[in-house]
């Protein structure tokens, strides 16, 4: 069943067409990998879905409801959460408070603070930051901060999770660990879109891969097939090193 779909999405910045008539869809329980060279429109697509800015044209539906142009906070409350490419924690708060904010404002309705705290602790345990609740964000390593990004997104109790380059800057072991983590997230019943430069990560975890180039979709299918399409190799794999 299709959970999230976008049709004919176009986003222009001045003369630059960052998204050009793009279609996409995400099925329930699916992990969709989004790849493409720098500037191909991956992050723009994320921003359009999550309401950072509206598309110039086209529409997005989530569970059959139109969410095109909804503000970021509303999109989050509907159940679509994201992480940022460059980690953006709340620096004045400790790790647990970061999650508590998300659990307080990212979920519709008013929940008891006690409940929010318990859920936040569960999520911290789930992402492997169990002992870090009271730590300041600045004490976390980069890998730890990426886990915090993920945890904070999960604290908004999403159905769809958009991960923007979660493995950038991580070493091999950290990346492997993150791959496991993302799989575990899916087992919880979430559908996930992953933007990633680390090819190993996308190829291993994605059920399906969508390749973007200059704001257009140039391929869409299972990883093995997409990786062998000449157009893709030319646009992306042939140019960039495979990490």
């Amino acid at each position, binding site marked *: 069943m299709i959970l999230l779909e976008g049709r004919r999405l176009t986003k222009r910045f001045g003369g630059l067409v960052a998204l050009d008539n793009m279609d996409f869809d995400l099925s329930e329980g699916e992990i969709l990998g989004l790849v493409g060279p720098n500037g191909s429109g991956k992050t723009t697509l994320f921003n359009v879905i*999550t309401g*950072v800015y509206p598309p110039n044209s086209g529409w997005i539906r989530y569970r059959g409801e139109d969410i095109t142009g909804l*503000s*970021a*906070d*509303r999109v*989050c*409350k509907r159940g679509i*959460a*994201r992480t*940022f490419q*460059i*980690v*953006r*924690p*709340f*620096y*004045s*708060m400790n790790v647990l*408070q970061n999650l*508590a*904010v*998300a659990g*307080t*404002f*990212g*979920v519709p309705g008013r929940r008891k603070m006690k409940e929010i705290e318990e859920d936040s602790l569960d999520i911290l345990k789930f992402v492997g930051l169990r002992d870090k609740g009271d730590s300041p964000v600045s004490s976390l390593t*980069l890998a730890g901060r990426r886990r915090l990004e993920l945890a*904070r*997104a999960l*604290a*908004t109790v999403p159905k769809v999770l958009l991960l923007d380059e979660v493995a950038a*800057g991580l070493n091999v072991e950290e990346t492997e660990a993150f791959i496991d983590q993302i799989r575990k997230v899916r087992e919880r019943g979430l559908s996930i879109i992953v933007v990633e430069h680390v090819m190993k990560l996308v190829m291993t975890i994605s059920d399906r891969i969508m390749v973007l180039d200059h704001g257009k979709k140039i391929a869409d299918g299972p990883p093995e097939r997409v990786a062998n399409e000449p157009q893709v190799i030319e646009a992306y794999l042939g140019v960039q090193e495979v990490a």
Partner: protein
Amino acid sequence: MKTRVIVSYVIALLLTALLPILLPGYVSYVIVVLMYVVMSLGWNVMGGYLGDISFGHAAFFGIGAYTVALLVNSGVSYFAPLNLLLGGAVAMAVGAVVGYPFLRLHGFYLAIGSLALLGIFYSVFKDILASFTRGASGLMVPAIKPYSVLPYYYSILVIALATVLFVEFIVRSRLGMAFAAIRDDPEAARAVGINITPYRVLGFSLSAFIVGLAGAFFAYYNNYVDPSGAFSLVVSFEMLVMVYFGGVGTVAGPVVGSIAVFAAEEAGRIVLQRGYLLVLAIMLLTVFVFMPGGVVGVLTGKTPIVNPFPERRRKEMKHDST
């Protein structure tokens, strides 16, 4: 709250309540300090907790002061506590109305725009509404008869205490969480479900209310309000120095800062006469260079993270991680 904190609050409260008996000669000084406490706590709601730095808060001080002066002079309602509250309420209402367009600004632009805001209200009260406000000649607010300093003292003491409790309450509530999130990173705040504009407008209005209350008190205590005294850049500057010197984004900071600024002003007036503002400027620069967390930051060993320019910090972070 920790027992120690509560005990120290109680002691401080007792001492200030008994001050007119213990040190009757100092009452008029402490009145000014308490007024400063209210002003700076008000400024800190927006500048410290929301991270929106304003140089224009004297506008709300002036609006509060003029509200009282106009009410008293027009003979409408001569019940002081109500007039004080109305002073705050009018400032708050103005804050809410101005807030929606004004808070489209962020960071540097907001800081500079706030100067324009102050300029606007100065002109409005001095020139545009001159037929009501008597322009530059100002308005008198008669002192109570028979005169005693005590009603003034206990009024501002109650206001200051209520303000401390109110700000403590805000900081510990969900509202305070939202403020901190918005201050730390507006875009991340949005991404976790916070609709930031209403919160910023609310913070701005609450800040305006508290500063307006201080202004309303000022009108009574000073017996006189004029545009250049009420809508004064010096007043804005004082709030800033008090907050940053004491410790931005804390409740104790503005209290400490108010005492320090008052003492520095008095000392400065003795040594430098009209040049006393130099002392405040030196305090501000010293704090920025040597102790960004202010006095409270030095005592607690923490530097409060109040960066009104998250854009800039994000870039710094990017360099850190790559």
